[in-house]
């Protein structure tokens, strides 16, 4: 990118405004610059809006399925029982909620970071299989909880 700019400047030394004008479409058509897609002409703007909407829908789907399963799995779990007992004992539920909430945000952040770290190193196919096995193990643990309780 930098080398292209320097060569065009060297060739068009007389008209610097023209060389600037030539350079701008280069920047927007650069595949590395994803934000540049939004500033291009009408036809591609529509498709970028469409892909934005599709991505948004996919994100909502991921959010909803993650939220529902983890919420249901966590209801009545040992962490919830611990916080429940602590708030009953201390009579200050907001303090317990603040401490527990901070810990939960940190553990889920660590989990997501480990997941993304793995995603960069392991191939997508292997990772999907491993994730599926992991989810099945979690399901088995939950069923075991129900049987033993």
């Amino acid at each position, binding site marked *: 990118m930098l080398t292209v700019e320097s060569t065009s400047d060297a060739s068009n030394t007389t008209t610097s405004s023209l060389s600037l004008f030539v350079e701008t479409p280069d920047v927007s058509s650069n595949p590395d610059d994803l934000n540049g897609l939004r500033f291009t002409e009408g036809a591609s703007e529509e498709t970028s809006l469409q892909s934005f909407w599709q*991505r948004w829908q996919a994100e909502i789907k991921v959010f909803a399925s993650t939220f529902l399963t983890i919420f249901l799995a966590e209801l009545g779990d040992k962490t919830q029982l611990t916080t429940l007992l602590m708030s009953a004992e201390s009579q200050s539920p907001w*303090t317990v909620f603040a401490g527990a909430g901070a*810990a939960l945000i940190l553990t889920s952040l660590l989990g997501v970071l480990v997941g993304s770290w793995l995603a960069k190193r392991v191939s997508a196919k292997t990772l999907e299989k491993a994730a599926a096995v992991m989810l099945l193990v979690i399901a088995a643990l939950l069923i075991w909880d129900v049987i033993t309780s």
Partner: protein
Amino acid sequence: MDWHLLGLSFVTVFISELGDKSQMAAIALSGSSKSLRAVFLGTCAALLLASFLGVMLGGSLSQFLPVRWVKMAAAAGFVVMAIRLLLNGETGEDDTAEKIEQV
């Protein structure tokens, strides 16, 4: 603000949650999903709501909540997600394309 209680509840929950089901689920889902942000926000929201209900409702929670059925529903949800991960071979290419775009 009772700092001792705050620290105690933080450390207790952090240790009991580390390597627990929900964190394993967060690892599995973020590794295989398109959007890390959505997985992180979904996990956080679910955990915060669950602990909020636990703290605020206290002992009365287990009386009106069919915990066994809720856990079975969660297990069914995880099984469905696992099967979907195992079956979608053609969307796997989409995933990698999306990841390359993000990087």
